[in-house]
């Protein structure tokens, strides 16, 4: 660890928290329908969109209607993406003449992008045409993010509204999230990224003549090794910048290229790296301020943000420390840190321009949220360094969290927290004037239980199948368990990052991970919306001396403890057999 590293990390969190307030207040304006400076341009677009699609913006929806609209819309987008992938060979913007995508992979990808997971079981530059990237995948980056924001806003309305049955209009919320928030910021960021070197074109791949011809060794199917001289390099191209900006802003994380944000065409400089990380937290941190603003208790928003910031710090500290350590199994390698000369530490799977700091911070931020973009390969992290992204996901991605999903996730944890506080003092728990009753707690527990059920259930089944499950592992020993556990955690958390050594492009993993992603998104949204609908119908209970305040440091600590205890109780056994055991064995000198 170095002083410069900590300065970069401090600057990052300071800017994140400074941006949260203006961003949060702006989003509150957008969803309360108050005036914004973009109105003159966007209101005509909004009206046109409603006219073309037959939306009545004044129609209010109950939670069930809101939920059905969301589900049917998502289904329609999944079908579109599946069809485009299958038919891409017949469609334009395919200069590399890439064939149609296989059914299992096409389904996995369509579900993956619609659930905001963006898990990728394929190498994009050799699988997806430019049209598929733009029309099939970039679109989902907007749709899933806008849907997430809409759901969070609906949940906030459930808290704010009294004795009402409705939560707002799904189409209006998605439209406003897209036009007022996602699209303008994406355009600006895309241009900044291009200025730094992120590509954006529709050219066929470029053939470059190598400065020095290279000898390539390949092993054929018969096991014979052949060497050949390679004199050219085929440089993959494509409309990258437009997808790169929404990829992080919408906490999506699906790479235009296989290497994701490690690829120099996606993330060429330390500046793009910094902006990509900032844009990941921009909306999730802002939404917490929006919550405080819309419920009329800004302090509550800051108490929640404080909890998130503490959890963020614990993650980044552990990851940065672990990755700065030398690997004890290397010999004759200089792994020390030097300010002027090298970042040192565990550089396997990391880029020189980002070093340890830029990689560890990115890994923490991308898994605090549901982003899952990576600028370094988590599979090659030190055991305790790789533990951090995994734990971040397993805690439910509520450390700022995905756009929207982070906010409704943390509200579920808040409901459990005030319920526990209520039990301790023997009173009916309340949250911002709403009584929390049996139905709400049941739904909150359903939300919390589905998550470990799919992760641990599918991991266990995979581990029991020597060929289908274990055959996909690329690493052995405790790290093999980590690879499987990480895959299902990432899918259920709709994260999309991976311990990518696992070959997930098999029928078992494609289908089981698709099911996991589906459950991790929709089976959690339904109970969440049920709570929101139920809360909206309740009266406001006046605050008394016995009400547990949700604006104090005590509340922050209680929330923090609940998140850690629920996560630790559920996943500690699995984690101790994976990364923790691997750490101990590494320092005892074992390799696998």
């Amino acid at each position, binding site marked *: 660890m170095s002083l410069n590293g900590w300065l970069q990390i401090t600057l990052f969190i300071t800017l994140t928290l400074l941006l949260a307030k203006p961003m949060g207040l702006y989003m509150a304006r957008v969803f309360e329908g108050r005036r914004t400076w973009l109105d003159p341009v966007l209101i005509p677009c909004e009206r046109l969109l409603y006219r073309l699609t037959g*939306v009545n913006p004044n129609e209010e929806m109950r939670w069930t209607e809101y939920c059905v*609209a969301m589900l*049917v819309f998502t*289904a329609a*987008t999944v079908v*579109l993406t599946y069809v485009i992938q299958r038919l891409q060979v017949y469609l334009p913007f395919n200069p590399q003449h890439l064939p149609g995508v296989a059914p299992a992979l096409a389904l996995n990808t369509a579900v993956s992008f619609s659930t905001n997971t963006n898990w990728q079981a394929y*190498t994009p*530059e050799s699988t997806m045409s430019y049209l598929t990237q733009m029309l099939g995948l970039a*679109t989902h980056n907007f*749709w899933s993010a806008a849907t997430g924001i809409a759901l969070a806003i609906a949940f906030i309305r459930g808290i704010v509204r009294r004795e009402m049955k409705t939560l707002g209009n799904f189409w209006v919320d998605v439209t406003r999230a*897209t036009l007022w928030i996602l699209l303008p910021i994406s*355009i600006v960021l*895309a*241009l900044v990224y291009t200025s730094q*070197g992120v*590509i*954006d*074109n529709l050219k066929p*791949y*470029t053939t470059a*003549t190598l*400065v*020095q011809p*290279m000898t*390539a*060794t390949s092993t054929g199917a018969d096991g014979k090794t052949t060497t050949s001289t390679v004199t050219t*390099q*085929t440089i*993959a191209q494509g409309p990258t910048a437009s997808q790169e900006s929404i990829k992080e802003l919408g906490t999506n994380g699906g790479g235009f290229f*296989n*290497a994701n944000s*490690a*690829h*120099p*065409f996606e993330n060429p400089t*330390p500046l793009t790296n*910094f902006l990509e990380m900032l844009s990941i937290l921009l909306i999730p941190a802002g939404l917490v301020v929006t919550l405080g603003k819309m419920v009329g208790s800004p302090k509550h928003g800051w108490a929640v943000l404080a909890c998130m910031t503490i959890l963020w710090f614990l993650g980044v500290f552990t990851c940065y420390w672990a990755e700065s350590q030398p690997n004890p*199994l*290397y010999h*004759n390698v200089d792994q020390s840190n030097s300010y002027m*000369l*090298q*970042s*040192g*530490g*565990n*550089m*396997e*799977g990391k*880029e*020189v*321009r980002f*070093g340890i700091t830029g990689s560890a911070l990115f890994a923490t931020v991308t898994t605090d949220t549901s982003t899952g973009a990576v600028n370094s*390969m988590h599979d*090659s992290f030190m055991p305790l360094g790789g533990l951090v992204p995994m734990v971040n996901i397993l805690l439910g991605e509520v450390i700022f969290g995905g756009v929207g999903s982070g906010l409704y996730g943390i509200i579920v944890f808040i409901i459990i927290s005030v319920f526990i506080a209520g039990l301790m003092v023997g009173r009916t728990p309340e949250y911002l004037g709403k009584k929390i009753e049996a139905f709400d707690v049941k739904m909150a527990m359903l939300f919390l239980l589905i998550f470990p059920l799919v992760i641990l259930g599918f991991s266990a089944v995979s581990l029991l199948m020597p060929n289908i499950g274990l055959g996909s592992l*690329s690493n052995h020993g405790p790290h093999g368990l980590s690879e499987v556990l990480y895959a299902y955690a990432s899918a259920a958390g709709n994260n999309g990052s991976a311990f990518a*050594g696992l070959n997930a492009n098999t029928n078992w993993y494609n289908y089981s991970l698709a099911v996991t992603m589906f459950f991790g998104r929709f089976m959690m949204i339904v109970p969440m919306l049920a709570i929101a609908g139920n809360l909206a119908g309740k009266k406001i209970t006046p605050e008394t001396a016995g009400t547990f305040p949700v604006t104090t440091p005590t509340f922050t600590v209680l929330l923090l403890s609940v998140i850690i205890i629920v996560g630790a109780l559920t996943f500690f056994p699995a984690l101790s057999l994976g990364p923790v055991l691997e750490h101990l064995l*590494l320092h005892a000198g074992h*390799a*696998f």
Partner: protein
Amino acid sequence: MKKTLITSVLYTIVTAILLGLAYPMLVLGLSHLLFPHQADGSLITRNGKVVGSALIGQAFSGDMYFHSRPSAAGNGYDPTASGGSNLAATSSALITRIDASVAAEKIGNTPVPVDLVTASGSGLDPDISPAAAYYQAPRIAQARHLPISTVNRLIEDHITQRLFGLLGEPHVNVLELNLALDSQSAH
């Protein structure tokens, strides 16, 4: 339900055109207007031929050129198959590979800078650390019959420092450094 279905399909189609065609085309147009060189891949041409991209690494071998980092992209630095090795810190395959790289790069008894023997995340890392560049300087100087001070100065000229003295890590672009080395030798 039927109305929701119709709205969903229409909304999908209309927004797909907006977000999947109009938006990327707008960014494409603006980026070519403002930053055409970057948007096309920061390509480097020599004598009318494209010899690579300033952002995409290439493999170099022998004593005459600065070596890039090991690469896990395809057969090495293949931009159609970007990616890392994904080998764990406890992988014996990784340790074997590192030992081989150390044997190939080692000069005297000085330990090899870590980035020179580890594969990057993208497999296309265009850079090495200044430590890795200076480490190779004696070999280059000897092979090219150049004074070591000339090689060191060339390295110094090619170090990209931290942005604002703060962000990122200092790095040296290997392709640009080697091209500069070639033109230096040609003089």
